[in-house]
Structure formats: structure tokens, C-alpha cells
């Protein structure tokens, strides 16, 4: 449902704040909690102004404890609230892993729906901003493999707000990953008021015939640039922004792949067990007979994200994606 009126130019991080504000205004049961989210407005200012607007009872600076934040959010969620918990950086979610894996994601199925956890976990993720160690992880696949949690990753301000509102409205736990690198990289018209982007639906960013490029989050930029370069050389690219990583947009992927028969998948997470593997399985299941070339993956490596002096080598770049496009075309 859309009650949006005008639009406003916003960065991705401002769109996140706007999504939170929109939902908090409308619903008293939506609360925000996490480290430094209150007075400070979050280390990236994602909750800027909310503390002043909604007060410390709804915008809560918690003690420094991720397991505590998520564990208590579960308790809040089963008892009438819709907590939006911020994990300051995705790489600091690990102390909360137990709470997410053993409780948040299973309570509905353990109790056959008697208890549910309508909770959103927000976290900035990804490399490329010369951050200190552990601040650059991209471990979304640890969560897409986890039964019982949806995983979404917007790549632009419009989707960020719409997906965040959809996530807060969702009756189940949603992990909402924010591409840190693109928090402020560009502005875009974002509707004021409430609108949603449906969870589980990807978006086609370019229409093309020769090759499907699939990416999400911070890698969309790299994919767009590589696609533009390919197009200058006469290769037309069908470019897909997944937006939701679980559940994947099976129809969109199948439709595109059946048209092009050639696929390049891009993510900055490590290769083994990454989303690329899952997408290849999906293509195998839906479109095997349409394939004209082996699928290429351009990903991070099976290494920890290195310290920032080497992070540009770790991250997929335009050249690596372009090379992969050429490879599947020339096969």
C-alpha cells in the first residue's frame, strides 16, 4: 500500500532513517535499539534525529552486547513490540549468532505459530571504505542458509526505504543489510510517506539479450559499470539486482537466464558457499537446457577480508566482472 505524496532527494542512509521514522510515526510498537543509536544517532547517523523525535523509550541506547540486543529483541517481539535492532557493523553480529540461529529463526516453527518474532536486524556490511579490521565482512550466506530468516540487501535509496518498511511489516525475522560503501555515494528521489518494495522480488536494472549479470547491494555499482563497458563493445546485458537474498526471485532469474543463456554472478562475499552457489543451483533447477556457457562467478575469495591495504584486491571490480562477461560470451 502506498500513501506516499511528494518525493525528496535522499542518500541511502537518509532513506533508512526516513523508513524508520515513517514506521515509528505510524506504529507505537516499532522501537529502535542498539549501540549508539540514541543520542549519537548511530555511528553512520542512520537513526539521526529519531531520539529527539521519539524519545529514549523508543530509540534505545543499549549496553554493548549483541547477544543481549538480539536476545532481548526476541523477548520484545514475542510480547507485542516490533523491534528494529541495529548491529553496528555486520562483522559484530557474531556474538548474536546463537540467539538468531537457535531462537529468532525457530520460535515460529517450534511452537507451530504460537510465538512469532516480527523483528528486523539492520547492519551495515561490506568492504571498500578503508575501515579497520572486522568492519568489512560480507557474510550474508551464513544467514541465507539459516532456516527462518529473510535476508534483504537494497542497493539504492528508494529500495532501502521501501524494503525497510516491508521488513518491519513482515511477520518474521528479517536481516536488513545496508551497503556501507553506498550510504552517501549518491542521492535519489525517494517518496515521502509510506511505500513498500516487496520482499522476494528482484529488479531488472538494464534490459539486454546476450548475458545476464546478477548482483546485489554494494556490488550493483560495479556490475553497472562493467555492463556499460560491455555494451560499448556491443554486448547487451540483462542486469539483475536481487534485492532479496532469501527467498530469491526465482521467476525473474529464470526468465532472464532463459533469454540469454549466459550468466555472470557478482558478490563480494567469499566464493565457497556464497550466494553464487545457490543461484547456480537455482539455474540448474529452472533453466539447465537453456544454458549456452558455464556460469561465471566474480566474488571475494575464500580468505578473510584483508586489512584495508589489500581490500581493493579482494573486492570484485569492473575489470574482473567485464572479463567474466567476455568469457561467457566467447565460450
Amino acid at each position, binding site marked *: 500500500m502506498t500513501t506516499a505524496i511528494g518525493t525528496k532527494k535522499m542518500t541511502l542512509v537518509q532513506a533508512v532513517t526516513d523508513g524508520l521514522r515513517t514506521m515509528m510515526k505510524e506504529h507505537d510498537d516499532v522501537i529502535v535499539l542498539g549501540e549508539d543509536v540514541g543520542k549519537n544517532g548511530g555511528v553512520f547517523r542512520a537513526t539521526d534525529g529519531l531520539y529527539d523525535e521519539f524519545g529514549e523509550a523508543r530509540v534505545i541506547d543499549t549496553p554493548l552486547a549483541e547477544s543481549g540486543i538480539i536476545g532481548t529483541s526476541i523477548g520484545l517481539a514475542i510480547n507485542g513490540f516490533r523491534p528494529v535492532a541495529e548491529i553496528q557493523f555486520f562483522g559484530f553480529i557474531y556474538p548474536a549468532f546463537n540467539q538468531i540461529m537457535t531462537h529468532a529463526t525457530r520460535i515460529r516453527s517450534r511452537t507451530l505459530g504460537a510465538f512469532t518474532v516480527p523483528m528486523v536486524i539492520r547492519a551495515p556490511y561490506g568492504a571498500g571504505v578503508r575501515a579497520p*579490521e*572486522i568492519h568489512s565482512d560480507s557474510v550474508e550466506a551464513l544467514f541465507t542458509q539459516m532456516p527462518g530468516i529473510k535476508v534483504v540487501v537494497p542497493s539504492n535509496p528508494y529500495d532501502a526505504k521501501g524494503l525497510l518498511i516491508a521488513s518491519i511489516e513482515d511477520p518474521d525475522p528479517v536481516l536488513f543489510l545496508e551497503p556501507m560503501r553506498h550510504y552517501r555515494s549518491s542521492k535519489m528521489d525517494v517518496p515521502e510517506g509510506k511505500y513498500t518494495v516487496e520482499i522476494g522480488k528482484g529488479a531488472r536494472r538494464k534490459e539486454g539479450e546476450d548475458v545476464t549479470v546478477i548482483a546485489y547491494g554494494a556490488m550493483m555499482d560495479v556490475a553497472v559499470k562493467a555492463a556499460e563497458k560491455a555494451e560499448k563493445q556491443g554486448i547487451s546485458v540483462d542486469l539483475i539486482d536481487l534485492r532479496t537474498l532469501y527467498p530469491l526471485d526465482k521467476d525473474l532469474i529464470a526468465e532472464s537466464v532463459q533469454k540469454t543463456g549466459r550468466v555472470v554472478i557478482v558478490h563480494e562475499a567469499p566464493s565457497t558457499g556464497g550466494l553464487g552457489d545457490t543461484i547456480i543451483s537455482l539455474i540448474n533447477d529452472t533453466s539447465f537446457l537453456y544454458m549456452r556457457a558455464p556460469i561465471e562467478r566474480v566474488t571475494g575469495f575464500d580468505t578473510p577480508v584483508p586489512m584495508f591495504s*589489500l581490500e581493493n584486491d579482494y573486492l570484485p571490480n569492473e575489470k574482473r566482472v567485464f572479463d567474466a562477461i567476455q568469457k561467457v560470451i566467447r565460450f
Partner: protein
Amino acid sequence: MEERFPMLQIVNGNGEVVDEAYRSELTEELTKELYTKMLRIRLFDRKGVNLQRQGRIGTYVPFEGQEASQVGSAMAMGEGDWMFPTYRDHGATLTFGHSLKTMFLYWKGRHEGCLPPEGKKIFPPAVPIASQLLHATGAAWAEKMKGTDRASIVYFGDGATSEGDFHEGLNFASVFNVPVIFFNQNNGFAISVPMHKQMKAKTIAQKALGYDIEGIRIDGNDAFAVYFHTKKAVERARNGGGPTLIEAVTWRYGAHTTSDDPSKYRDQSETEIRRKTTDPVLRLERFMKNENMWDEKWAKQLEEELTAEIEEAVNEMENEPDANINDMFDYVFESNPWPIEEQKEAFMAGRGE
């Protein structure tokens, strides 16, 4: 609880001795060593902030204001002991023998920055809050099992006491009577969150009670108090007396990191007052003046020498060859499993190597 855990002080902000029991131990030699080491890391710290502003290193984490805590505690440790710092404790590691150049390299995003000097048991800084308390406990436990008299010291902040790992570390150390010093620098804030929002407890030292271990609270800006009380705890640990939780009450003057803006959450005038009243370096200067140990010429020359040493380290950092791309692939395991080897080969081929 504040009465039960009074803030121990030996020399107050005016540089006056307030605990006479220690007077004979406050020698000129010790005083000058403390002063030298504190000034050295203060100059390093200011350089770090400047280098970040000029874009010559990445995000930097300053510790100015916490020099007495870091120097006093590190000096209380001995050869062969272990040190487990956080991202804010390079003052302690530098005092314990880390090299200036290596520390700069760390903040330049170089893996070389995680390497301790030969023979020094200094772990890389822990970034995930409180995780290192358990490592320190394990390493000290190993020393105990091996029958040595070596101990560990582990640094962490006030915010870290909220993490589960803090409590697990104290409990393991208590249960197994491990020779580890839990050295807390209570600088009043965890990024923007003040201590009173982090915990209802008025002291951190009192958390020792729950684990039935020693707990003390000291003036973390009094280098003598930090040095002598930590030393006592280390000696107790060496003699089988088990762990100690030390709360060193201090203050960070600057931002949480160079990416942080403290004016969002606190009044920086507090810092300006503290610079004049509780500053750890100034306190030693006042003490030396009171005791007729101060020599203006000595102090000036010392600052020049330390500045030159730091500049030299900056040069070395900047003349270091670029990071080696192989380092990303070749140290994940002792030898590369095939996926890493194949990824490495493909990557090198793609760059034309």
C-alpha cells in the same frame, strides 16, 4: 560499593603524594621513566591523529588522556609475560616493546602491523569487543599448566564489561585460578554511551565480587598508582594467587576514533578542564617540580628526541614497500587448499601476472 572499592591514588592531580607508604619508592629514576614513556606515546598518538587527517593512514584510534593507565600497567609486566590489547592500547604495547613503525603500519591497514617484535608475546589488537579476555585467560592458563610464573595482562574498556565474553573470561580465570590481570580502562564512554547507561553499578571493580576474585579501583591518571597496584596484582598472580580485576578510572580526551564526532554526545569542555586538573603527564611534571626533580632542559631535549624517533618511524612506515597481494591468500592456512590456490591463480592471471 564506591566505599568498598575506593579509588586508590598515590600522587594526586597537584603532584602531591597522598599515600605516604609509597614515598620512598617514588624515585627520580622511576618517575623519569614513567614520564618518558608517557610523553613518547602521547607524541605518537598526536602524530597518529595528524597522519589520519592528512590521509597518510586510515582511521586512527586515539588514547590521549589514558597514558598513565597504559604505561603504568605495561611497565608492571615482565619479560615473557603476555599482553592482549584492544584497538586503543597501542600506548601499552609500545611501552611493552612494540615498534613504532609496526604500530603505524597497523593503522595504515597493513597486516605487518599485527606482528609483534621477535620474542614479545603481544597479541594483535582485538577489534571485537571483549573477545580478548578469554584469550588472555587461556594463554595465562597455559603458563600455569607449564609450571612457569608468567602472567597475562588484558586491556578492555568500560563498554566491554557488558559483553558475555567479559563474564566468561572472569569466570574461567576464577574457576581455574589463572594468573591473568584484567586491566579495565574506564574512560567513561563506550563511543557515545556513558557509563551510567552501560551499567547500574557505580564501579567496575565490584564485578570481581561475583567471581570471587580480587578487584581494585585505581586512579588511572596516576601513573604511580597504576604501576604499583598492577605490580602487586602481577606478583600475586605469579605466586598462585589467581586473577585480579583492575578498574583504572580515566578519560579519553578526543573522539572515539578519527571518524567520530564527540560533540554529538558530550560536552567537550569536560576534557578542557581535565587537561588542567587530572592530566597524567602534567601530574608527573607537577610531582617532579614539587620534588625538585624537574629540569626544563631535560624535558625539552627529551621531547625533541622523542619527536625525532617518531618522525623516523613515520619515514620507515612510508618507505615500506607496498602490501604484498600474496599475503591475502597465503596465510589463511599453512598451505593453500585448492580453492584458494585456484582463486589466487585466476586473480593473478587477471592482473596479467
